[in-house]
């Protein structure tokens, strides 16, 4: 098995080398650092979502809610509590993850399409609260008046406020930690159980596995990580707005995951990269970019359902 093992390390090496060198090669191909930041943030959101979809087999179509709640949590903290980036991220995770966990309790017995519908509805509730509560959340115009605070590491201050490159590396570090945690989780017995549930829920239940509890845990963990991505998004934009909670963003997260390959760990990141770059490129070229994005959805579903990494996996296995 050492051949497969080496290949995995090689793959990891390549991925991290590419990510680390972004500020150097991205401008050469007509990109810009904020684009890379967006890829990382949405990639993290998609990978977090995939814990639920790809690894547990449960379909939520309202995941943008936790993303947006994370963004608002971080923004509100920076605006009203303290100018501290770590605190903002923590509060974002608590808000999005906490509400997600609570909501999960309500719906954990549902499955399939009904589950999806209810998650969409919850997302819209959050969206509605965000754009109506004018005094607190800034309402329709969004939450503004806050910005990233420099990181005080005790021995040094890292200025992530004005230095985009430093901010990109900050994002990368947080991304690395989050993704590392996810990998550990999914390789653990808990993660294996989730796979079992995905493959055959009834048989897993016969084996005595508490299905609902596992699904709820998977849902809550997924929400927490998605909320973390959301708080990073607020830091990226220095802004939080209701559209970050809208179901159209949920749909985009799902397509990124599926496009990259929902059975692969790194699939969603690849899908996010492709989608974000395509969207950025196409929307600059034509005002009818929505048709093209819709077309991508349709083409992926009809012709590339396994996603990019899924196709590669199959080719390697064959």
């Amino acid at each position, binding site marked *: 098995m050492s051949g497969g093992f080496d290949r995995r390390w090689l793959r990891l090496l390549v991925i991290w080398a590419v990510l680390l060198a972004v500020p150097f090669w991205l401008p050469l191909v007509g990109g810009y650092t904020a684009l890379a930041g967006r890829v990382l943030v949405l990639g993290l959101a998609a990978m977090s979502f995939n814990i639920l979809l790809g690894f547990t087999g449960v379909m939520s179509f309202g995941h943008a809610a936790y993303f947006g709640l994370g963004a608002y949590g971080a923004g509100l903290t920076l605006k009203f509590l303290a100018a501290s980036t770590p605190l903002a991220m923590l509060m974002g995770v608590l808000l999005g993850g906490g509400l997600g966990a609570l909501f999960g309790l309500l719906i954990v017995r549902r499955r399939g*399409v009904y589950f999806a519908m209810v998650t969409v509805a919850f997302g819209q509730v959050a969206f509605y609260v965000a754009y*109506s509560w004018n005094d607190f959340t800034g309402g329709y115009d969004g939450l503004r008046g806050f910005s990233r605070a420099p990181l005080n590491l005790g021995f040094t201050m890292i200025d992530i406020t004005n230095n985009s490159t430093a901010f990109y590396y900050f994002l990368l570090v947080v991304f690395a930690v989050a993704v590392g945690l996810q990998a550990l989780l999914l390789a653990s017995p808990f993660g294996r159980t989730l796979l079992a549930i995905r493959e055959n829920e009834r048989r897993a239940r016969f084996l005595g596995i508490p299905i609902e509890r596992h699904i709820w845990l998977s849902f809550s963990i997924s929400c927490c990580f998605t909320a973390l991505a959301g708080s990073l998004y607020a830091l990226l934009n220095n802004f939080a707005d209701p559209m970050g909670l809208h179901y159209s963003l949920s*749909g985009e997260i799902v397509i990124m995951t599926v496009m990259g390959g929902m059975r692969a760990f790194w699939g969603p990141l690849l899908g996010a990269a492709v989608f974000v770059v395509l969207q950025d490129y196409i929307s600059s070229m034509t005002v009818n970019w929505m*048709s093209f*994005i*819709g077309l991508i959805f349709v083409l992926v579903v*009809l012709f590339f359902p396994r996603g990019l990494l899924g196709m590669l996996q199959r080719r390697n296995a064959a």
Partner: protein
Amino acid sequence: MLQVVLFNVTNGLIIGAFYVLMALGLSLILNLSNVINFAHGNFLALGGYFAYMLTPAIGFWGALLVAPLLTALLGFIVERLMIRRVYNRDPVYSLLLTFGLAFIMQDACRFIWGPNGLPLGVPDSMSAPISDQLFFITWYRIFNVAVVIVAVSGLFAFLRFTRVGVRIRAGTLDLETVSALGVNVSMLRSFNFGLGCLLAGLAGVLAAGQIGLNPNMGDDLLMPSFIAIIVGGVGSLTGTLVGGLLIGVAAALTTIVWPAASEAVIYVIMAVVLVLRPRGLMGEEGMLT
């Protein structure tokens, strides 16, 4: 005070009738095919736009008849070309498909007819209020309610008394057996999808006469339809009917005391139902129960 309440309840029923029409189409498709049609709002818009194109040629009444049929036809074609292929797969694919379709259809509407609002001409006789006392009820609104009543009764009668209707109902309960009994399930689903789009198109024509046409017009009706279905109970058409009327009336009544919350109240109702009775008011077993 009683007069105000009565006014608003009546109003709520009129609004609710709209939600019902939209939600029933969505529910039909959901029950039989297990597909959430995110593009439903766009079929509604298309129905309105078709009516806009047809009115100069065959008048409002002609458009009212033909536009929904055109929408149904389009729905049928879309289902046979695309949605049919993803039934056997993970439900996430059908969601993504209708989602993508929604994007494409909205953009197409904007591209063909422009982003500006367009008015739909309604016969003048219908624009007047029915009386001075009831000045807020125009004949058009009465007409809307009448059409909805006819359509809904027609739908329920169709599902009860015609062979295709019975097959659709049976299919909701157990599609495999229906197929084993020799019914062409594939055609049945396509037809059902078309039927759902017919209702959406009809709602679109009515809505266009009321609020005019624009590419985004379906978006605001999509969420209340979802909620009507959740509140009424997935799988039950009567439930959807009740759910739609309930949220319409609730929204209208809330406008009396706290106008800014009139949108919030439907979400509150949904939350209450989810907590207290997760399967919805009328449960999830079959239809017409």
